């Protein structure tokens, strides 16, 4: 019983974080049909904001809010630096600019801060554990589950009930038509980047809360997770991203429990091989999004 609870909590907390990461990526992809390679660096930005503000004596929640705000700011900056100037050109051009921008941010952190890991301030609650039905769980896992439920619900509400969300979904389905009906394109794209940055910021705090330190390459793993989760779930669909995130967490956690120590080193290789198998079976991903329209 204790084992089952442990397993479920592990899957849900990892899956919640994965789902949020995937969601942040797919919001951009859904509207612009473009992959944001600089997404992982938004998580890095959140981490370094925490590190830089750690000496200021501010309460932790203020620092966290500051970190999320910086991630949002850099999300919007990504739009202006890497996407807007080349948006109308080829898809490859935009992939490359976002890849270059990701490298730019990473190396800027390397140059101006340090290549070595930096400690991030965390409240005590992140390192405590509780016992639920005999399973000992770190409290941060429960925080992750709670945060992901709240955020997923908030994003669902935003997308379904608000004007902004409806405009975003309209833009994702048929960009040209949405523009003709008076949806301001640049505003929608910038808000999508801001929302993506917001999710990245929150995930960043939760993710770095697990590790405790931040390095320039910290964004790579979340980026990969988001990539794989969106490919499994279906690149065009927001629920697909969430499903993909939880599924990937289930696969990862199962492998964690079942593989021997020798094979565990290869876990990523196994996970990605599974992804290839899923794609063989359903090249569109598990959940199909709206039919693709013209971009920009």
């Amino acid at each position, binding site marked *: 019983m204790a084992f089952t609870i442990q397993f479920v909590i592990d899957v849900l907390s990892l899956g919640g974080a994965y789902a949020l990461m995937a969601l942040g990526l797919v919001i951009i*992809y859904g509207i612009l*049909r*473009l*992959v944001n390679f600089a997404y992982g660096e938004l998580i890095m930005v959140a981490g370094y904001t925490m590190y830089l503000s750690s000496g200021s004596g501010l309460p932790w929640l203020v620092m966290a809010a500051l970190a999320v705000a910086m991630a949002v700011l850099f999300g919007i900056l990504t739009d202006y*630096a*890497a996407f807007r*100037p*080349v948006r109308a*050109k*080829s*898809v*490859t*051009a935009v*992939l*490359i*600019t976002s*890849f*270059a*921008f990701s*490298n*730019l941010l*990473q*190396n*800027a952190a*390397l*140059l101006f801060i*340090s*290549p070595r890991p930096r400690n991030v301030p965390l409240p005590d609650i992140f390192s405590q554990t509780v016992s639920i039905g005999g399973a000992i769980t770190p409290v941060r896992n429960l925080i992750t589950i709670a945060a992901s439920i709240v955020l997923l619900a908030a994003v669902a509400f935003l997308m379904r009930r608000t004007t902004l969300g409806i405009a975003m979904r309209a833009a994702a389905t048929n960009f040209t038509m949405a523009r003709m009906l008076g949806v301001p394109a640049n505003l929608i794209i910038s808000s999508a980047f801001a929302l993506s940055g917001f999710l990245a910021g929150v995930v960043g705090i939760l993710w770095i809360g697990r590790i405790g330190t931040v390095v320039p390459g910290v964004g*790579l793993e979340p980026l*990969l997770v988001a*990539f*794989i989760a*969106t*490919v499994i779930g279906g*690149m065009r669909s927001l629920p697909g991203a969430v499903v993909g995130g939880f599924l990937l967490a289930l696969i990862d956690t199962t492998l964690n429990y079942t593989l021997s120590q020798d094979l565990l*080193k*290869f876990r*990523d*290789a196994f996970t*990605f*091989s599974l*992804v*290839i*198998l899923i*794609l*063989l079976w359903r*090249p569109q*991903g598990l959940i199909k999004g709206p039919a693709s329209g013209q971009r920009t």
Partner: protein
Amino acid sequence: MKHSYLTALVLIAVIAAIAIGSQLIGIRLYDRIATNLLISLVLVVGLQTFMGNSGLLSFAHIGFMGLGAYTSAVLTIPAQMKGMALPDLYDFMKVVEISPLLAMLAAGVLAAVVAAVVAYPLMRLSDAASVITSFALLVVLYTVMNNWSAFTNGPRTLFGLPKTTDLPIAAIVAAVVVVVALLFKESRTGKLLRASREDEVAAAALGANIPHLRWRAFILAAFIAGIGGALWGHFITSFAPKAFYLKETFLIITMLVIGGANTVTGAVAGTILITFAYEGLRGTEGALNATAIGAGQVVGLTEIVLALAMIAVMIVKPGGLFPNREIGHILTRARRKKETVA
């Protein structure tokens, strides 16, 4: 077709000029830089055969380079050194020792076989999904290289490769690869693939089996990457898996993209340009490190400048320096124009 010969001639002349020029100057540092340049050229032109013709960005290329480098290493490290260099190697492999040339071929073949198996399902994807999976493939290859200690000595540095790559050999391989890339571009597969790059739906309607065409190009690219990896391994003689990861990937993609991914000329031009820029910037970084007292190491400056250059090129000239015409084509057109004017 005629201008393809001219292109091949011009590009081979450039490669020869680099090799002979640096031999004549006779400074060892320049020799190293020139050899490095030619090895990068092999890799970038290899990437061009896939990326340029299919229009799909591939991140996995450096992974196949690593595969080639390790294959060649395992096959050529002298038997008496294997105990030290690769302590966990399987027994039956310990006695194997073949000539570096054969090993280079084996490296290419192994990379191609792995690519053929792995990429078959992936080539059905296009756009973003294909880019993402190629990125994932890079991570898989890196994970395997980093952990399969028996063959790669794990994350530790592998040493003991015989140093067999010198400037003439690198130049010959580079010239052959350039010719192969041009031939592939003009072959039936290459032409159909380029048609699919321009318009997927129209090409498919004309009967092009796009996943299959992409698959062939991907195998060729992996083969060239494997050869390039072996070449590099025998030049550098000791390396660790982290040499085959994001930093290198960024560098070769920068080279190809700034030069122009659609043409072999672009690949060559980009490699030369970025190698010089890279060496210059590295020199500056080194000089700054020598002068800055107590200010800590300057790292990452080179990459920042390259990233800015890449974004600028994409904004101003999204096709790179040679967006769609090979150098031979440009030259023949220029001459014809002059004739008509005169």
